[in-house]
């Protein structure tokens, strides 16, 4: 595949990862932070951006590690552990940088920034990228799209939950209960995108 075709492919993959194969609403990955940090649009946006950033770059790093360390050594089965280590170290690094340059964002995200380490959507994106045998450029497009898809989903959820502030939710369903039901409805709505890319 030439470079131009790869970029086109990357754009298509990115679009698909946002809408038709949304990592959250189609694969239900990264649910825990999705449920717990979606109370406010502002915080959700901050966390979403962190996920976009971390996901895009970890997919790229993981791709390089997979291609140039694991494949030559025939240790492909080791990718789970290696990917996790890379993600953990990278999140730690991002945390340091945010603390230094954007304390406000740092405090808004609080304990959830380290939680990105164990956000299964991040690991999921890296593993999907391996299974689907993407090239480097396409993989980056995929990572970016998955992150943006996650951001879109959590922003939509936070918007809905803010509006629900006035709604009378039955006591037993308040909090995570109603959030999961809404997530289910949103997932149904996203099925509507199926077939967009033929």
């Amino acid at each position, binding site marked *: 595949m030439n470079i131009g075709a790869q970029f086109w492919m990357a754009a298509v993959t990115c679009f698909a990862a946002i809408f038709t194969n949304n990592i959250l609403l189609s694969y239900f990955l990264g649910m825990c932070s999705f449920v717990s940090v979606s109370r406010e649009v502002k915080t959700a946006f901050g966390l979403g951006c962190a996920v976009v950033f971390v996901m895009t770059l970890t997919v790229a790093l993981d791709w390089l*590690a997979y291609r140039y*360390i694991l494949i030559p*050594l*025939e*240790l492909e089965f*080791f990718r789970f*552990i*290696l990917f996790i*280590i*890379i993600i953990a*170290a990278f999140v*730690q*690094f991002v945390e*340091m*940088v945010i*603390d*230094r340059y954007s*304390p*406000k964002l740092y*405090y*808004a995200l609080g304990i959830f920034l380290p939680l990105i380490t164990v956000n299964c959507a991040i690991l999921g994106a890296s593993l999907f990228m391996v299974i689907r045998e993407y090239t480097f450029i396409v993989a980056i497009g995929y990572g970016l799209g998955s992150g943006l898809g996650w951001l879109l989903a959590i922003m939509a959820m936070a918007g809905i939950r803010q509006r629900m502030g006035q709604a009378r939710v039955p006591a037993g369903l308040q909090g995570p209960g109603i959030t999961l039901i809404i997530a289910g409805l949103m997932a149904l709505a996203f099925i509507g995108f199926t077939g967009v890319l033929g």
Partner: protein
Amino acid sequence: MFAVLLSVLIVSSVSAGLALVLVTAERFVSNYGECTITINEDKKLTVQGGKNVLAALTEAKLFIPSACGGRGTCGYCKVKATEGAGPVLPTETPFLTPEELQDNVRLSCQIKIRNDLKIEIPEELLAVREYESVCTEITDLTYDMKLFRFELHDPPTIEFVPGQYVQLLCPRYKGNREEVYRAYSIASDPVDNKVMDLIIRRVPDGICTTWCFEYLKAGDTVRFNGPYGEFRLSRTEAPMIWVAGASGMAPFVSLLHQMKNEHITRPTAYFFGGNKVKDMFYIDHMKQFEAELENFRFVPVVAAPDEGERWQGERGLVTEALQRASADLGGHEGYLCGSPGMIDAAIKVMKQLGVTEERIFYDKFA
């Protein structure tokens, strides 16, 4: 076998490489270098960046009041940050009024030093000192309260306004891994300035009170700093209503000494509440003050005396006793010290009885 060794080797070396990157990053990204804090446009303080302003000031022996020890929960450590403090954090906003926000007031424990700063602190706080003392006497007051007497060594005397408090340094001990400061009101006679008394009530699992009750022995060296606080007698002639519970007794003992020393004869009714008869203490002391101060009246109130216990004083909540005793408190001043719940309830009752808000002074245990 070879695969196993190889994979261990790969994972180890990748982890080591990443660890190296992180250590280097920490060195460069988290290194804020030396920063200068200018205090009141005058005093300059050079500190290593990265820590918070409260910690840096404490290290430089400048003591800003803080009851929680820098966790951002008491809201006492306010300073005016005129330059370089960065945006107000969500952890601070609950403690700051709109006027304070306008005025650049911040919680010093929440400002991380990232660059040069300019701050303003009240001059009287610059007079706050650190003291070294020896605990000379520990007396049981009730089953969960003790009186601690400290003899001052360095400096040998303490000047304070009755009603003020000090911060006791609780050292590391088994189960407590870091030094913390906790605030306690002074309960002694200001004239007798070579010693200081504190009345401390045991808090279940409290870091400092556990230390005081289980580890502190007579003869031990204890460090504290102070005095702090705006809780004090006003310079008016208005009659006063005092309300306290448990160790809230402490500042009032000091105030009573002051009234005796300065021959203050303002009419004063002191309502002291406890849950059971066993919670009451210092009744005799108070009787003594009643005899010596002509317009002072002590009203002990027990909420729920046990069956068969002899209790001749008032019964019920301290606020109920206050309502029963007084129909109209217009023109009075209210002084309160105790748990936040008790204070809030007492303020409500006092307002109903006609005490205006600016005439109610209190010291809330945070």
